[in-house]
């Protein structure tokens, strides 16, 4: 069985590269309004662990179709010779700079590639297309015509009539807005042009669907990790002796908010990478946080213990040491050892704690004043973050690689509310555990990821838009 290969051909600027970009999920495809941007054939194989299932070939557009057809007509007598004539045309004009585009685009077709002829359905049919369609018909290769809807007007009916005379199968496809299902439907349609390719393409579609599911799972995991991280995030800072508390707190608060923003941005980047979108320009407002949403504390610490804990530890230590003396004298001391030990331990811990705190070992102070910000206590915060992340994921999943505009993630908070109370309860259970920061189970993030994956699968059902 031959490898399914499809040459995407047509007039320049009719969206060949956009279709290739969308189907191959490759945003490196140059898409330009200037004709002739694509000068060489470029191959986009679909490979699974290195094994190629099919290939798409983006080709330059026809430039001198009339002249090429005239040459072919001058060289052939009957319909039987037409395919050979096209072969001969390519052989004889391989080095002719006038026909570089024609030779490049015809070469893979003559080697057995199926033809995917692309036209713009938003513009009317013109007689200048007839020469190139005729040449393609002469090749005798299986073919399919794609009406790409670039603009708002619809001339697809007119095109269907014209294309129907040259191509057995005609499909309408919008490379800019086609969602995943439409893309795989188109791939399956490619299988219709040659029976022997159908099985391979069905297999390819199955693998693409699995890959899509995998991407959703991983996106859900990335979002869950971000959420867990953001909910539990805590920032601490040791205060210098002469540092003003309020100023230090403001600086720390600013840093805290920046950290949260960075976590969100990192999540966005990772989700985009999962879907092969890189360097996307995003327009997204930062998540709004009020200072009251955050726990803020000032503590004095030594060896990680608060002053009270330190005094208690000192007292207990002293009591234990004194207790040994009590035991040694068989209790005749009437627990005086323990009592005095506890008092001595507690008092010395209290008196010396400041001095010990200022001692530096290996450049680190042993203790001192510390301020901490976080974790987040606003119960709506995780839902806002989750809503934003889900919306971003969906927009990325639906975004075609042909579309090069910025990603606009500006939305109103009410758009992100979760309508389904049962799901909200499930989420709340997990968020609550994260907020409390009690000893956690390792599968908490996995549970959260699983819930998020369900939300992704459900799609827009749970989000009010």
């Amino acid at each position: 069985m031959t490898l399914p290969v499809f040459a995407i051909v047509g007039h320049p600027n009719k969206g060949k590269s956009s279709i290739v970009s969308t189907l191959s999920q490759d945003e490196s495809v140059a898409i330009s309004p200037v004709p002739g941007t694509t000068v060489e054939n470029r191959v986009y194989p679909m490979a699974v662990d290195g094994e190629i299932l099919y290939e798409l070939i983006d080709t330059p557009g026809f430039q001198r179709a009339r002249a090429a057809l005239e040459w072919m007509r001058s060289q052939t007598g009957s319909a039987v010779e037409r395919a050979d004539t096209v072969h001969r045309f390519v052989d004889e004009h391989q080095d002719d700079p006038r026909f570089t585009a024609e030779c490049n685009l015809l070469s893979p077709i003559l080697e057995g590639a199926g033809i995917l002829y692309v036209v713009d359905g938003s513009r009317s049919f013109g007689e200048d297309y007839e020469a190139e369609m005729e040449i393609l018909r002469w090749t005798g290769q299986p073919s399919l015509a794609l009406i790409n809807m670039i603009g708002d007007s619809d001339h697809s009916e007119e095109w269907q009539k014209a294309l129907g005379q040259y191509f057995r199968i005609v499909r309408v496809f919008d490379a800019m807005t086609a969602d995943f299902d439409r893309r795989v439907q188109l791939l399956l349609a490619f299988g219709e042009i040659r029976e022997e390719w159908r099985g391979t393409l069905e297999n390819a579609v199955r693998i693409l669907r699995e890959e899509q599911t995998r991407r959703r799972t991983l996106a859900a995991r990335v979002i869950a990790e971000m959420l867990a991280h953001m909910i539990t995030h805590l920032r601490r800072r040791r205060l210098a002796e002469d540092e003003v508390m309020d100023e230090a707190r403001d600086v720390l608060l600013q840093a805290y908010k920046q950290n949260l923003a960075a976590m969100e941005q990192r999540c966005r980047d990772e989700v985009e990478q999962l879907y092969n979108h890189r360097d996307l320009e995003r327009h997204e407002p930062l998540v709004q946080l009020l200072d009251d949403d955050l726990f803020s504390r000032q503590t004095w610490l030594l060896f990680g213990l608060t002053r009270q804990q330190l005094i208690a530890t000192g007292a207990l230590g002293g009591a234990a040491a004194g207790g040994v003396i009590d035991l040694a004298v068989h209790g005749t001391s009437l627990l005086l050892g323990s009592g005095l030990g506890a008092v001595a331990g507690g008092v010395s811990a209290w008196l010396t704690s400041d001095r010990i705190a200022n001692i530096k070992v290996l450049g680190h102070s042993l203790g001192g004043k510390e301020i901490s910000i976080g974790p987040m206590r606003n119960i709506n915060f995780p839902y806002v973050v989750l809503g934003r992340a889900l919306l971003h994921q969906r927009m990325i999943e639906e975004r075609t690689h042909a579309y090069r505009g910025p990603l606009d993630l500006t939305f109103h908070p009410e758009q992100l509310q979760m309508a389904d109370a049962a799901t909200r309860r499930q989420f709340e259970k997990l968020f609550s555990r994260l907020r409390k920061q009690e000893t956690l189970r390792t599968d908490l993030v996995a549970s959260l990821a699983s819930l998020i994956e369900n939300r992704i699968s459900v799609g827009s059902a749970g989000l009010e838009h």
Partner: protein
Amino acid sequence: MQSPHINQQNSGYNEKMTHASLLGDLIELDEVLDADLAIDLEARKQRDRDIGRKLHRNRSKPASQIRAWLREIGPAAARNNGLRATRLYHALCLALVITGLLTGWGLASAVLFYDGNQPINVVNAVGILVLPQILLLLVWLVAALPIRLPLFSGIGATLGFLNPGRLAGQLAGLFSEKENRGLAILWDPDNIASLAPAARWLFSFWSQLFAFSFNIGALAAAIFLVSFSDLAFVWSTTLAISNETFHQLLTILSTPWSAFFPDAVPGSELVANSRYYRLDEGTLAGTAATSPQLAIELGQWWPFLIAAITCYGLLPRLLTLWISWYRFRHHLRKALCNLPGAPELLARMNSPLVSTLAVQPEETREIAASSAVAKPDATRHAIRCPVIDWSGACGRTDEITVQLGTMGIEVLEFLRAGGRQTTEQDQELATSLCRHKPEGVGILVKAWEPPLMDFLDFVRGIRRQCGQKKPFIVLLWGGQDGVTAADRETWQLTLAQLGDPNLHVEGIGQA
């Protein structure tokens, strides 16, 4: 973009699944996964799938697979950090062992202190060396329960700072560098969701290590004192407990070892003979204190005491130490697979690598914007010329004539070229047109169709025949939608390739 690199050499890395090596791996993995984000995802996919296929046999053991991946990919710096953290961990373990041994030895020495005057009270010894251990063990059991009991979790949170394991952790965190957090990643609040259980069991392991060492110290001290001094044990209590009751209590306490260590079960006679009353200088309930036989008998309590410490102190602590070690190891393995980025890594290793991207970079032809037809459009031409309809640009010549009239272009006639005409017919048209020496030539084109080489050939041909001076006006017809700025730019950029100074581009019915 960094290029991925697969370390083919055996790094000499510790392949054993000990908890210390797991801990080192966890710290290394945290660092490597963080740094890995700088590598392009496609490159990571390829690299990890290659490694995943090599490690196919480990697929059902994700922790092993991740560790093997680390061995392949882990840079030396990260490995050093892992090893450094492991060393710190071992140092803290050693410190806890030494502290435990000394504390145990010290306490047992105090409890078993005997200077020949006051015999050692067995009730004291059991009360200090055995009973608190049983109580603390119960507390540990409650803490180790998977279900959090509100009361106990409250107590745990209040008194948690007294846990020697937690204190050791705080000491370790105090000296960790910011860039290389080492062991401190385990209790970093940012990692609480993935590493809190491992940290919890590490603290438990450390505290049980301390307790186990304490019991070893206590036992060692007891055996030392029994061996190298002559101890005299008695039992004494103010409570109204009869010899029989006390004997029954001791028998119950001795049940665990009574079957295979009967000598360590105090007999009723020993209990009766060694009861001590603090009267005058102290008197024994049995025969005269000076009897050598009795002196020997009073020393017979030691097997019971050793067995009690072993059974209620050492062995349970050995068990809790093992449980803590096992759970810590278990959670370390889980943490290896749950660390942020690790599930993604496993997916990359174990899922087929699906690629739809182009293999080669694209070669494109760029036309510089500065090379566009730069002259400002003449809004009024005042010219009489024939207009060539290229490829049937517009069927409604009347409408076009009117529109061109408003632009100062008087149409002499409409001619046809391109489209269904042959190139030969185009040439003939050009020859015949130029023979009449028109003032200029208008060429009507569809604005939305890009200018092809075919069109450029035609313009070149007609220019050759009509001369360089004649103004040529390319008239962009935009149809219902009008001529967009993008269409105009496309035409200007493409026609600029001709380098024709007398070539103008005009739009009809601008959008």
